């Protein structure tokens, strides 16, 4: 089986760097905050039930609500564009951006544009693209990739960031978060006020009113949609709810689950371009609705994953994510949600090993604000992976050999003795990272324990026989 770069290879690489320590620390702090908010908000459980019903209802009628949404956006004076895949989305967006040569584009954090690799596309056409979320800005300066949905630079320490600002922004080195913050504010302000185009994602669209909602804590989402002449909102086609009241429910559970706030600092509702008489705001409002594999996911056993509201809570509680960090997943969406979604969205073979990167402990299901049964969906994806591209081919021949050996006592004993010898040669209590022949499948995704110094039979003879 040929796999590009496996989860295992990336995970081992990530664990050898100091990053995961930072990720683990950060993820645990997120969890602490989340706990506080849940205790604080009495009807949280009912609100989660409502949120789940709203999302499932929307998915079950998605075509109808998308149609209504598009009508509403147009009624408000906005424009809707439809993109079947990443290539089409990038082409449509660059047609709008490219009306002016060398446009200055500011962006507020958006996973879907990561998925499209939009920045690279626009830059290749000669435009300047500036990420404005502080974390994404740092990622862009470092020419890196975000490692967490909500906290993209979880994997960097403040010394890393101080060093980076010193190098790229030519300021004296400091690792004081307040000072780094002030530098970023000043640096980015110029871009906000003079940009030609603002590109945002969409946390949720509202079919009834044609609104798009972005939530940020920094205010960059608001600035991105308020200052430039043109606002382009890029929306995954499933990010929709029927009514404004439904959207209120969603942003309430989103804020609580994501960061433990009652509401994010800026919940920004945009319903079209500025109206006649408005003193400021964009003259032009364009929504690009992106499929890019979502209708394929919708038609499979894993369709429930599209109810996700991207709060990131399942990442923070996942023991695997906490060990290896976001980059090990090698996809835009990481953690439990990514392990289900990525194999659906991406070329399946590229992410085929992600559904196996879970112990199915169920912490993600517990914490998910819309109660998505992630472990069940992971199993669905495993079944599909095994059917289409069996990563466990080694298991059959391996077990057959084991059977042959186990039936022949003398062969069995001598194999065990050889194993013990190999263990002693390797040194005290060293785990095997690689086994030979048909057993190598075992060590592809786990280590093999060192053999005991003496066999059970020897031990029995010495300690228990005759009693």
């Amino acid at each position, binding site marked *: 089986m040929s796999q590009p770069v496996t989860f295992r290879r990336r995970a081992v690489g990530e664990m050898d760097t100091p990053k995961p320590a930072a990720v683990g620390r950060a993820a645990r702090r997120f969890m602490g905050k989340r706990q506080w908010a849940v205790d604080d908000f009495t009807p949280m459980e009912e609100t989660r039930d409502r949120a789940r*019903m709203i999302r499932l209802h929307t998915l079950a009628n998605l075509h109808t609500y998308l149609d209504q949404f598009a009508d509403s956006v147009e009624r408000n004076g906005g424009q809707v564009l439809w993109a079947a895949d990443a290539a089409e989305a990038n082409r449509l967006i660059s047609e709008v951006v490219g009306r002016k040569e060398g446009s200055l584009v500011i962006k507020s954090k958006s996973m879907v544009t990561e998925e499209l690799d939009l920045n690279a596309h626009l830059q290749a056409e000669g435009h300047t693209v500036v990420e404005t979320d*502080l974390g994404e800005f740092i990622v862009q300066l470092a020419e890196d990739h975000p490692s967490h949905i909500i906290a993209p630079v979880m994997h960097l320490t403040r010394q890393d960031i101080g060093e980076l600002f010193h190098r790229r922004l030519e300021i004296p080195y400091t690792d004081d978060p*307040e000072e780094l913050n002030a530098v970023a504010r000043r640096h980015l302000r110029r871009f906000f006020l003079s940009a030609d185009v603002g590109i945002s994602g969409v946390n949720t669209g509202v079919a009834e009113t044609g609104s798009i909602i972005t939530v940020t804590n920094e205010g960059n989402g608001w600035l991105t949609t308020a200052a430039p002449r043109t606002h382009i909102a890029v929306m995954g086609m499933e990010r929709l709810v029927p009514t404004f009241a439904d959207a*209120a429910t969603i942003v309430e559970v989103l804020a609580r689950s994501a*960061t433990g706030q009652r509401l994010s600092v*800026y919940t920004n509702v945009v*319903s079209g371009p500025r109206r006649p008489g408005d003193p400021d705001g964009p003259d032009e409002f364009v929504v690009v609705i992106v*499929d890019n594999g979502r209708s394929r996911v919708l038609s499979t056993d894993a*369709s429930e994953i599209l109810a996700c509201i991207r709060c990131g809570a399942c990442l923070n509680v996942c023991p695997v994510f906490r060990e290896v960090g976001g980059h090990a997943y090698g996809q835009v969406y990481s953690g439990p949600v990514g392990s289900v979604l990525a194999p659906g969205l991406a070329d399946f073979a590229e992410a085929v090993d992600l559904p196996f990167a879970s112990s199915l402990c169920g912490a993600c299901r517990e914490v998910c604000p819309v109660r998505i049964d992630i472990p069940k969906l992971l199993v669905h994806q495993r079944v599909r992976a095994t059917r289409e591209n069996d990563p466990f081919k080694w298991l059959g021949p391996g077990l057959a050999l084991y059977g042959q050996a186990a039936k022949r006592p003398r062969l069995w004993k001598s194999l065990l003795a050889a194993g013990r010898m190999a263990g002693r040669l390797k040194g005290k209590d060293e785990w095997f990272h690689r086994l030979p022949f048909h057993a190598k499948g075992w060590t592809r995704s786990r280590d093999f324990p060192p053999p005991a110094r003496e066999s059970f039979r020897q031990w029995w003879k010495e300690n228990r026989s005759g009693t």
Partner: protein
Amino acid sequence: MERKRFLRTVEAAVGAATLPGLPAPHPGDAVPDLAEVDLTPHFIEAFELLDGVVHHRSPLEVISQVMDERGAEEFLAWDQEHLPADGLLAALAERGYRRASSCLPSDPEGRVPHQMGYMDAVVGVSAALAAFAESGSVVVASGRGRSRLASVIPAVHVVLVPTDRIFRSLSHWAAQADSPGSLANLVFVTGPSRTGDIELTLTKGVHGPGEIHAVML
């Protein structure tokens, strides 16, 4: 791709979807709890918990004080008719504070030079369309005479909050809001701008105002 074809693909996928709980009914409208409570103290508590500053003095005094503390002479603000404090702008002018224009010039080419004038804006004054007691949020709306940038650009945001506009929560307000999509922009502002991106250390004012003052009316 045109809309019809896109939607046909989605419809086919919906037909094949194995969603739990089909036919997946909408939960219906939430039934809001409307028991009489004085929401003002709740709002104030939540707002202060977020490091917002609450004032019970006149807006004129609060704004003058904020301006003086920072040595600012100019401020951004909504038009007088949208501020629930009669004669506020005239009184500020009398004290020698200048209001910067927050209206874009009619020539589209003039937008950037005009906006660059806000680089160092210190104080912005606007008013709340509504407020939420549970989260300590204020609703800032766009519209004629109501600049968006006046609330988000300056380092300090002073927002006038009429106490009869306080609702329990966002959901309670949304349940009764009349065509919320008719205004181009609504923002629920919940405390000062903050980020935890650098090792999750909380810092304020990264892009939006680092200070928010509510003047209760």
